[in-house]
């Protein structure tokens, strides 16, 4: 039965609303659930939500219009998104999309007239090592092939619910190819937290029962453990793994030292940078370690509330993550009385809904509060006034996992790995033209060449380090090292071989940023569109040297004047490409000098449609 014809959605919406507090902060979570239920947000739901949460309808509509995975029109019984990262393209996602659409009889971006299915592109879904990938009703389908598409079409035609599709369709591999000191073995839940609480005690203390040692009444270890663990964090010199590399200990101490009735610990699992998928693997196989790192942080800073903000693309991990949290509560590692110490901390999961900007910490906090993911003003920093204006530590998934190991093994141990200014190890997400794509753990300081050798990518022409917002590295630079001393990175490592046209890479990235700009500030909102139009003009063979200057000028303007990191880094790949792969641009330019962007023939299209003509005489 098509859900498009659900006659009275009110009753179902009311049932959903009953399960949520009348807290405006729940708006996005409610919209996500409603979208999953109806495959759109019905108009009736907008009014009910507004009344239930005491917000305006315009506010609700504002969210529906902002997040990519929310829609105010019905998207079909089967909602298919094709991942459109450059790595998916290199694996043939465009052919797959075309084939799927033709088999289904649906136009890309439209819903089939019977309301059965829609197919559209989406930004990178984090399956770059096993693409081309898609999402079908929220579930990831990896390794798309013609055979797989044929079977999908059969199931859709037969109205087989996605829950009854073969499991192999949805199989997501870890592809953990190389582990080093942090992820060599499975993590034993509770060990890091206990170590943190006992930290600084003498050896005899460790011999006695843990419960006695941290008894709040005796006060032996309680406060000291937190202070000593913070010292270990300083000794570790652990820097944030989200890319910016801010020292975690400084953030934690700042948060701890601000007087406030409540504090938050937020784990950033938005992982929207195309080509990045380490957080997916950590949350699949090391969730305990991540949650334990958050709990250690909460213990150090004195936070009672934790939030895992995770991107919608990883919805398939929901049951698993909730089970891990439930198990930790049962084991006394979360909840009102952690390990019998009387200390209370718990973690809630907040789902994103398709917005790269929400990986930026202040935009994420807005999203957690149930708003459009718009970055906040620069000051105050989230660590001073974050979620609900409370001091908030926001760290990346990998940072918390590393923090758990610092708590367990100490800062000196941690700092013994990596380089002087980039301690510990780093996960790299290797994808693109190589024999063994997947996750690689290396101590900081590893060279590009070493990773290429290990992953079987020595034919590389270029490597995009840190995603589209990062740096393009060419062959003569392959001895450069991944560390804050040289190339800072979130861990994204996309390989392009000699067959690849680097202009196509640029075109994919440029459109990604145009799609993901939040629209707040002028330079990013307009600049990303101007850049996409200019790149498309060059792609159409109509580029002139003036256009390349124009790209430079807009890029520079965005770097200087954009409000947040998204707009400031969005042109990085263009600036690199124009220097390092100018030939790939120039071979497309048919003329030199000025060529107008205005296309006289294209502008006649409306007239052609109105008159129903498409003959030769109707074209210039």
């Amino acid at each position: 039965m098509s859900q498009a014809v659900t006659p009275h959605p009110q009753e179902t919406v009311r049932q959903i609303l009953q399960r949520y507090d009348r807290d405006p902060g729940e708006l996005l979570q409610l919209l996500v659930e409603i979208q999953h239920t109806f495959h759109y947000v019905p108009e009736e739901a907008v009014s009910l939500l507004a009344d239930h949460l005491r917000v305006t309808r315009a506010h609700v509509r504002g969210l529906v219009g902002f997040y990519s995975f929310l829609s105010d029109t019905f998207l079909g019984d089967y909602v298919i998104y094709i991942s459109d990262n450059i790595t998916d393209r290199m694996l043939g996602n465009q052919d797959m999309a075309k084939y799927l659409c033709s088999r289904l009889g649906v136009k890309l971006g439209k819903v089939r007239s019977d309301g059965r299915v829609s197919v559209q592109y989406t930004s990178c879904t984090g399956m770059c090592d096993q693409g081309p990938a898609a999402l079908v009703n929220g579930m990831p389908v990896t390794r798309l092939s013609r055979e797989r598409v044929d079977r999908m079409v059969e199931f859709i035609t037969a109205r087989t619910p996605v829950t009854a599709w073969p499991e192999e369709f949805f199989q997501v591999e870890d592809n953990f190819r190389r582990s080093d000191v942090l992820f060599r073995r499975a993590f034993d839940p509770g060990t890091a937290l206990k170590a943190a609480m006992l930290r600084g005690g003498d050896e005899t203390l460790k011999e006695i029962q843990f419960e006695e040692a941290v008894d709040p009444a005796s006060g032996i270890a309680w406060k000291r453990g937190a202070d000593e663990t913070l010292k270990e964090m300083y000794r570790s010199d652990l820097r944030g793994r989200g890319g910016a590399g801010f020292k975690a200990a400084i953030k934690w101490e700042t948060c701890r030292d601000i007087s406030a009735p409540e504090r938050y610990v937020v784990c950033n699992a938005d992982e929207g940078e195309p080509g990045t998928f380490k957080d997916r693997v950590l949350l699949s196989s090391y969730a305990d370690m991540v949650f334990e790192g958050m709990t250690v942080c909460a213990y150090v800073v004195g936070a009672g509330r934790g939030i895992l903000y995770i991107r919608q693309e990883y919805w398939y991990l929901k049951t698993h993550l909730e089970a891990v949290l439930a198990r930790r509560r049962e084991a006394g590692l979360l909840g009102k009385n952690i390990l019998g110490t009387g200390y209370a901390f718990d973690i809630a999961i907040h789902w994103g809904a398709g917005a790269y900007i929400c990986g930026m910490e202040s935009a994420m906090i807005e999203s957690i509060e149930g708003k459009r993911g718009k970055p906040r003003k620069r000051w105050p920093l989230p660590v001073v006034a974050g979620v609900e204006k409370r001091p908030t530590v926001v760290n990346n998934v990998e940072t918390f996992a590393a923090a758990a190991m610092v708590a367990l093994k100490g800062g000196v141990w941690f700092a013994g790995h990596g380089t002087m200014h980039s301690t510990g190890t780093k996960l790299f997400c290797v994808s693109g033209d190589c024999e063994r794509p997947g996750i690689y753990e290396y101590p900081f300081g590893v060279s590009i060449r070493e990773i290429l050798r290990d992953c079987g990518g020595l034919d590389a022409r270029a490597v995009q380090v840190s995603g589209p917002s990062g740096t393009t590295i060419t062959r003569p630079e392959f001895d450069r090292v991944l560390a804050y001393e040289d190339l800072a990175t979130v861990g994204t490592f996309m390989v392009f071989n000699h067959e690849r046209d680097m202009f196509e890479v640029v075109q994919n990235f440029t459109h990604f940023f145009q799609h993901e700009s939040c629209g707040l500030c002028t330079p990013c909102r307009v600049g990303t569109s101007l850049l996409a139009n200019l790149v498309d003009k060059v792609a159409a063979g109509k580029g002139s040297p003036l256009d390349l200057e124009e790209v430079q000028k807009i890029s520079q303007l965005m770097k200087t004047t954009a409000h947040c990191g998204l707009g400031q880094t969005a042109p990085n790949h263009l600036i690199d490409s124009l220097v390092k792969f100018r030939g790939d641009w120039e071979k497309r330019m048919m003329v030199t000098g000025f060529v107008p962007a205005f296309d006289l023939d294209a502008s006649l299209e409306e007239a052609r449609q109105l008159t129903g003509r498409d003959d030769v005489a109707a074209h210039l």
Partner: protein
Amino acid sequence: MCPDSIKTFFLDGREIPFREGQSVFDAAMTAGAFIPHLCHNPDYEPHSSCRLCTVIVNGRPFASCTQPAVAGQMVQSDTPELREMRRVLTQMLFVEGNHYCPSCEKSGNCKLQATAYDLGLQDNHFPQFFPKRELDASHAEIILDRDRCILCGLCVRVSRDVDKKSVFAMTGRGIHTVIVVDSPSGLLKDSKVTAQDEAVQHCPVGALLLKGKGFDVPIGERIYDKAPIAEDSVAKFQAREAHIHG
């Protein structure tokens, strides 16, 4: 030189006094130094979205409307590079919407137009986007012409914080961002807005207009016919400061 008890910073080589908690922008304007801006109105919370007020503070760019003044900092604002960037930002605003000054009722009272004159804009430079945006003329007294909107968010802020009605919000994302109206139909006529609302008075462009007031003030006698925006805005800012802080 200012007395030692007064804190100051340097703006384009000039010493600017400031009060604790004042932004670079507010301090500069109080001291008579104009910084071009569109989304900021000192009576309301800053938004730092138009980015025209970007200045270089100790070598790094910041929006001056949200950047706190700090004693001794070196600020650059009136440089050829920044003037050029402001010019380009203004051109961007012109091409992303549909702005036709000669036929616009706001002409002469429009901050976008006046700022373009101030920055010496000769043309829009970039190809026009010609977006298709909905016009809302449903209300008896107010018109919302989204074609002329520059997304400064003033109506959103003022309706929320001053009128306490939250009539306006934004939806869409990126280049598709638009103003939405809070009412069941999404139309102004079904909303709580009135012609007396503060939110309707502060639109810097012609996106929110009062009907029936069209040419009450003739062309030639309008705000920026009398004084360029740099002069007018500094004078108003200083008058406001004098009124509030004596």
